[in-house]
């Protein structure tokens, strides 16, 4: 009929394609900057054994050395290579950050979707979530670790638990908004079963919020890990982590400043990268949040 003459100009855009990424990046420099920085850090951390020395080897004769060709950032109070420790420390921070964010996101997503869809479940679960939110992360971590002994796994659990309610709440609010959309009702009218409605029509809408929230959780998890390790209740002291390094070197700031500044600056840069990525994603998914010319 008449609409056949509609201009066929734009190529049909499906979902995000790889070839689209450069264009998106140009539009969203924050995503590019944050994502790039984070990717670089991940690569450096993964490739650490290829270029960095042994991070745990102690050498009592080389304590608190200044930077040299052998040890680029010098050595700490036990004669360990600060550069190697910093690089290997990134692994801990990234693993803890990414895994806590991922577990909080997955659990929060499940709870949020079910709570958003079922009234009865909602009342009970969201009250439990309110309770969880009121537990201070540090106290929970100390309590858990005193029960099980220090370890990365328990640390991730301790960090993820108090972050989960925030994710669940966010997902629930998105689901509550989306389930009333006419297209969800239309799917029901078309005879779709509930799991399919959830999977196909409701879950995808939660992804943007989930990614943004995930970045926030990741950044705060990295900081929390460093804080707990600094307090001595995080990663076991024999494993190099930025928090451990800062804690063990804090007495030698005047003599060997790099022992503190190297992990400190890395920590700041990593958190900055994650936050930039989060902000960028938010702008990308919600153009109203910025809307410039």
């Amino acid at each position: 009929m008449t609409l056949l003459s509609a201009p066929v100009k734009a190529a049909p855009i499906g979902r995000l394609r790889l070839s689209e990424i450069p264009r998106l990046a140009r539009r969203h420099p924050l995503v590019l900057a944050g994502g790039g920085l984070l990717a670089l850090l991940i690569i450096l951390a993964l490739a650490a054994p290829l270029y960095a020395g042994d991070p745990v080897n102690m050498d009592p004769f080389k304590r608190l050395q200044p930077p040299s060709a052998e040890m680029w950032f010098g050595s700490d109070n036990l004669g360990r290579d600060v550069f190697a420790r910093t690089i290997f420390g990134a692994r801990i921070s990234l693993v803890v950050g990414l895994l806590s964010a991922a577990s909080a996101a997955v659990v929060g997503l499940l709870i949020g979707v079910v709570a958003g869809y079922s009234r009865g479940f909602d009342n009970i679960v969201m009250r439990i979530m309110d309770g969880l939110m009121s537990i201070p992360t540090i106290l929970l971590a100390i309590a858990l670790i005193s029960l099980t002994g220090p370890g990365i796994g328990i640390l991730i659990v301790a960090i993820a638990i108090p972050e989960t309610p925030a994710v669940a709440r966010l997902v629930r609010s998105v689901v509550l908004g989306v389930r009333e959309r006419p297209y969800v009702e239309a799917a029901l009218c078309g005879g779709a079963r509930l799991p399919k409605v959830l999977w196909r029509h409701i879950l995808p809408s939660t992804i943007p919020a989930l990614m943004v929230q995930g970045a926030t959780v990741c950044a705060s998890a990295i900081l929390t890990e460093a804080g707990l390790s600094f307090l001595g209740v995080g990663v076991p002291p024999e494993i190099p982590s930025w928090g451990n390094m800062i804690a063990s070197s804090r007495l030698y700031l005047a003599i060997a400043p790099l022992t503190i500044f190297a992990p400190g600056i890395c920590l700041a840069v990593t958190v900055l990268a994650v936050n930039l990525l989060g902000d960028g994603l938010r702008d990308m998914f919600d153009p109203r949040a910025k809307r410039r010319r």
Partner: protein
Amino acid sequence: MLMREFAGDDVLLDVRDLETHFYGEESVTRALGGISFQVKKGETVGVVGESGCGKSVTALSILRLLPKLSAKTVGGEVRFHGRDILELSDREMRKIRGDQIAMIFQEPMTSLNPVYTVGHQIAEAVQIHTKASRPVAMAKAEEMLRLVRIADPERRVSNYPHEMSGGMRQRVMIAMALACSPELLIADEPTTALDVTIQAQILRLIVDLKDRMGAAVMFITHDLGVVAETCQRVIVMYAGRIVEQANVVDLFARPAHPYTQGLMRSVPDPRRGRQRRLPEIPGIVPNLREPIVGCSFAPRCPFAIDICREKRPPLRDVGSSHAAACWRAEEVMGA
């Protein structure tokens, strides 16, 4: 040029070659492609067209209320009492808005502040434009509510917007708009969100009050029925330009632009038979991000000939107080 013979002291608003662009991330939308028209004192002018034709942009351009970051009036003049208000400073403009030109929007809830009583809001509008004291302004607010026929105005002044129905909120908006006796009232789809019986009440109210206060009204709507019932003169817009303007009786009796004609015929009318196919306007509106050669309606026009696709038709007189932008207006009127 056009209908300028009527120009003179009684011209209140004189818009000339008004051109407004919207800026997207990678493109420029020519929302208004240079429009010219006049509004005389005390006159009711309807501006009709479908979504995206530029009717609301016209109002916002005149009032200088376009979103600052994404839109700009790039050319033309808006002479109000002979003075180009596009040249005024923001402060002078604010004084004119509300004082001499007032506006009513489609959704009264979003234009009212939910945390203040309606009396407070009307009184504030009064106080901004006159030097009335608070009690005087509140008395004026009550008087305005009575004027827009809200029952029980003594009690209603202390109501919050959410305590009122949609129709009543629109009455409050009208009361606010008229509180300072403006000379021009711009009403952008003021009844679109309302039910028919309420719409009839509000339309009658606007017409009554306009007569009583002697204000001119620019009535922006998509509804030909509303135009027929309220306006003296009509401007039809399509794709950012005026395609036809005429007094209301002439326009409905003998539309001179194929678009106007198509629009009128596509409204269901039982006099032409029920359950019958309606005459359609084929195709869709042009994309204003791309330059248009010739008449913007040509691709959808049953009258289009070669010249229509090559040269844009100017708005020209086709009768006394009737103008159309169509190369074949005479044939269209005969059809």
